[in-house]
């Protein structure tokens, strides 16, 4: 459903942009419908940049992105609008993902209105259904973000995404700010949503326990490149690359 080949992104910095940093360097991968690809790596390895490139939230320098058979590499932002509701992202920090001045209800409605999907009555029903699905009640609709806990906010964000019926979701460290019990709740909701709507997830995390529990396949990133990609089970049993071995060892038996 998503095919990415030879994508590269370099950032310029320093005086007159003379220093180049390859955040993502010649990366190719593909994703299957309804499955989860885990993306692990240290801070600064280019995971998040790759996630944003895959959704065309930032333009790549080179490379090809094919989403559901359509090549979108050269799509303008305007052209992307029609596809945008199918390709969404969930961020790490739910507190900064929601506008503090808007009520939860307003935040939930906004993307729906932007994409002009259905009338108000239908929207109301949909919001109720999705909130129930993520385990929240409609009494939250009139509240503002600061009145909710981190776990509740992250579930609001998930409900807001599900309203758009996305086919591809990039999950950028969705649970790293949450405590262990809330993390388990959020992962449960994400797994149920995937089963119900056949969504593909690109799950970015540096927590190797979380990645293992959530992914079908796992790609390991280091210095802007994917150095290894295997099924989740095999990666933990027989890591091929020395770097992966080190990473697993550091995390699991530090």
């Amino acid at each position, binding site marked *: 459903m998503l095919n990415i080949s030879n994508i590269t992104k370099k950032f310029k910095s320093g005086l007159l942009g003379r220093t180049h940093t390859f955040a993502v360097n010649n990366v190719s991968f593909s994703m299957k419908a309804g499955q989860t690809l885990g993306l692990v790596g240290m*801070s600064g390895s280019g995971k998040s940049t790759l996630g944003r490139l895959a959704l065309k939230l930032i333009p790549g320098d080179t490379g090809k992105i094919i989403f559901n058979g359509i090549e979108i590499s050269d799509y303008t932002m305007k052209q992307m609008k029609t596809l945008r509701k199918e390709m969404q992202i969930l961020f790490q920090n739910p507190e900064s993902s929601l506008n503090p001045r808007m009520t939860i209800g307003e935040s939930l409605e906004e993307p729906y209105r932007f994409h002009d999907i259905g009338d108000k009555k239908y929207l109301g029903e949909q919001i109720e259904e999705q909130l129930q699905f993520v385990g929240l009640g409609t009494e939250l609709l009139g509240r503002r973000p600061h009145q909710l806990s981190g776990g509740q906010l992250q579930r609001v964000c998930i409900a807001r995404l599900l309203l758009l019926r996305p086919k591809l979701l990039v999950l950028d460290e969705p649970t*790293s*700010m949450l405590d262990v019990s*809330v993390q*388990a709740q959020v*992962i*449960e909701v994400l797994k149920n949503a995937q089963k119900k709507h056949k969504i593909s997830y690109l799950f970015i995390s540096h927590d190797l*326990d979380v990645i*293992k529990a959530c992914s079908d396949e796992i790609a390991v990133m280091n210095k802007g490149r994917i150095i290894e990609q295997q099924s989740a089970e095999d990666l933990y049993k027989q890591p091929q690359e020395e770097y992966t071995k080190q990473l697993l060892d550091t995390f699991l038996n530090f």
Partner: protein
Amino acid sequence: MDNNIYLQDVTISFTTKAGTVHAVNHVDLNVNSGEITGMIGETGSGKSVLGMSVLRLLAANSLISGSIIYKNSDLLQLAEKELNQIRGKVISFIPQNPDAAFDPTMKIGKQIIEGFLYHDKKSKAAGISHGIGQLQNYSFHEPQKTFNSYPFQLSGGMRQRALCAMGTVLSPKWIIADEPTKGLDAIIRQQVSQVFLELKKTANSSILLITHDLRLAQKICDTVIVLYAGTVLEQGPAGKLFDEPLHPYTCGLIDAQPHRKLLPLSGMPPSLINLPAGCKFHLRCSCRKDICCLKEPALLEVNGQWVRCWKYA
């Protein structure tokens, strides 16, 4: 005279518009010196509030009762001037969220040695060389450069390490660290945990580690305290507590970990404004009996662990 910190019947509440928030309720604890003591529990269980109360760092709308005894003096009764001699020098606090803890307009180095110059009254040059040495201890490759950087020029992991460097600049006897590994990747997390083990061994520091990271707690702590709704539910040696947890809440936390069953605890933590009667955990507990809803159990010793549950009464 020992160096332990004794908390006796500590109760902390906050007065807010919505009502009084009972963040910590009648906590009696001996935190042993020479050890790393872990404090675990969900968000809102009172971990950070309890940690901050030791140095009286809480907001003005807080009300603390009880006593916190260190070396025969009650930290809650000391005058501000006397307490300032303890803050940072004898007991230091490493706050969570390094993004907010540093002054964004001041260079890292200056912030790190601020406490050092205040307490030790040394020359600025001595402070700078001490600060750079301190950064070196926390595996900064270019300590000189980092010393002269602003917080925004460092990555999240570097800021976290710089914060630890600042908290330990005077080699305090006690370090209270609030979530020092939150959001860090595996390698930096390992570095930070190494630093704590090192401090315990070489500087003979005692550490109170407030954390969500159960793997970290299991790995480096000697003793672990489980807090829920501002109450101690279980306390014991780390190895034993994680292998044979007694309280249903501790079992739930351990099972919620992704490498265990990834099973969320049912329900939500109780409102701290209207605390439930009886055992604070009874609303979410699968082993609930009638008495749990009526009367709060006492903290009882069971095989060297302490647990507050009617199952063991």
